[in-house]
């Protein structure tokens, strides 16, 4: 079965599910996006290797002293995770916009915020979750102790969904705009800064003996805030882009 027919099948499912329980709309979009991602493994792996290479470049550029690496490690890994998430953002709506699938989603009777949530979750599973799993292993390169590695992974687990959520608004706003890629980073990166501060700060706070609880709670607050507002903001942005 080709990708195109898969896409049509999913849209059919979305249409049908509009009449029933709307959660099926979310899961069918999620399943479809994951399937599409699995069919194009190269793109997913590129973002992961990008994360790997970027975070390995820093020790080469700065020098191999363990004390220094331990200090910059959390920040470097977080910035790497942030950039790796950015890489996949443009694809979130782009190909669906090109082949008209997105228009069908907007027209379908299923609530658009739910369909958008499905796409965001798919983006996180493809680009955020691998980073969360890979980060503790890369953290070993920076001489982080096991406790710090746990905090790093936990922070990324709470923080990367925030990145996917905020990024979705930017991706929807820059859809079909010329110079979209560079513009997307200009719009989204400033909004990522609080997540970065709290995420990297959690590990720093743990290393300095303060405990990471406060930072992780603030990350959780950001996630709750983003989860509430982003589906609506993204929906509004998509409708504007498709006018």
């Amino acid at each position, binding site marked *: 079965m080709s990708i195109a027919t898969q896409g049509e099948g999913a849209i059919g499912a979305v249409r049908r599910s509009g009449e029933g329980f709307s959660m099926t709309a979310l899961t069918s979009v999620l399943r479809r996006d994951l399937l599409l991602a699995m069919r194009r493994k190269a793109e997913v792996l590129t973002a992961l290797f990008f994360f790997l290479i970027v975070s390995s470049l820093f020790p080469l550029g700065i020098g191999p002293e363990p004390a220094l690496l331990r200090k910059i490690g959390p920040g470097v890994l977080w910035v790497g995770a942030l950039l790796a998430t950015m890489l996949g953002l443009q694809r979130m709506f782009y190909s669906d916009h090109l082949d008209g699938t997105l228009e069908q989603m907007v027209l379908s009777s299923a609530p658009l915020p739910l369909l958008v949530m499905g796409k965001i979750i798919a983006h996180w599973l493809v680009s955020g979750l691998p980073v969360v799993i890979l980060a503790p292993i890369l953290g070993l390169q920076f001489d982080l102790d096991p406790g710090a590695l746990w905090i790093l992974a936990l922070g990324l687990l709470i923080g990367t969904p925030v990145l996917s959520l905020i990024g979705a608004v930017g991706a929807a706003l820059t859809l079909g*705009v010329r110079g979209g890629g560079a513009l997307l980073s200009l719009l989204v990166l400033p909004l990522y800064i609080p997540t970065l501060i709290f995420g990297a700060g959690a590990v720093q706070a743990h290393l300095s003996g303060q405990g990471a609880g406060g930072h992780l709670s603030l990350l959780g607050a950001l996630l709750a805030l983003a989860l509430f507002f982003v589906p609506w*903001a993204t929906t509004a942005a998509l409708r504007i882009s498709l006018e």
Partner: protein
Amino acid sequence: MSHRLINWFKLSSPYSFFPVAGRLIPWFWALTVLFGIAGLYVGFFIAPTDATQGDSYRIIFLHVPASWMSMFIYIVMAFWAGMGMAFNTRLSSMWALSLAPTGALMAFLSLWTGALWGKPTWGAWWVWDARLTSELILLFLYLGFMALHAAIDEPRRADRAAAVLALVGVVNVPIIYFSVKWWNTLHQGSTISMTKAPSMAQTMLWGMLLMALCFWMYSIVAALIRLRAIILEREAHTDWVLRLPEAAA
């Protein structure tokens, strides 16, 4: 009553607001100059020298008003952008667009004067403190708003897309304001408080308030001038613009 209401709504059309804006500009210029002279006089000649910081503190007469305006303009801009999106009124979106460059200027001035104050006081041009960082993010938000608007050719679509961005970014403004409490770092807490008596000399406070009024009036003037240009640009195809003496000349 109904008569007054109609009058107010009449001003929401670019056609009727254009001449009103033209008549308002000289008045706001006058107020800017007046408050500016008064504020600078109080700030530089009347206000006493600070016991700990010496005369270098006097840059707060520019720094604090610029910071206030940068935050205030963002809220006003987001408000008008939101109004433009909700009610589809053209003038609201034009207001939002014309406020953005002034807001960006204020954010930049705030960072610049902050650096000039930080060097003698803290011994560093820049510290990675929460307030400075948030002000920098605010500058980026202004730039993002303008860049997104510029990237979309169709003005109405650009208005609405930029409005979504402004409303998303407005979440950042309270973060700036409360950041002092969240991260407890180098930057001193806010000097003016609503609840307890101000910890600064009365004349310093007056100088700052006068300068804030000066910056406020200047922002209105700058936005009005820009707004008139935007109206002319967008309504260039209409008869009333072609009949304007400015266009005929």
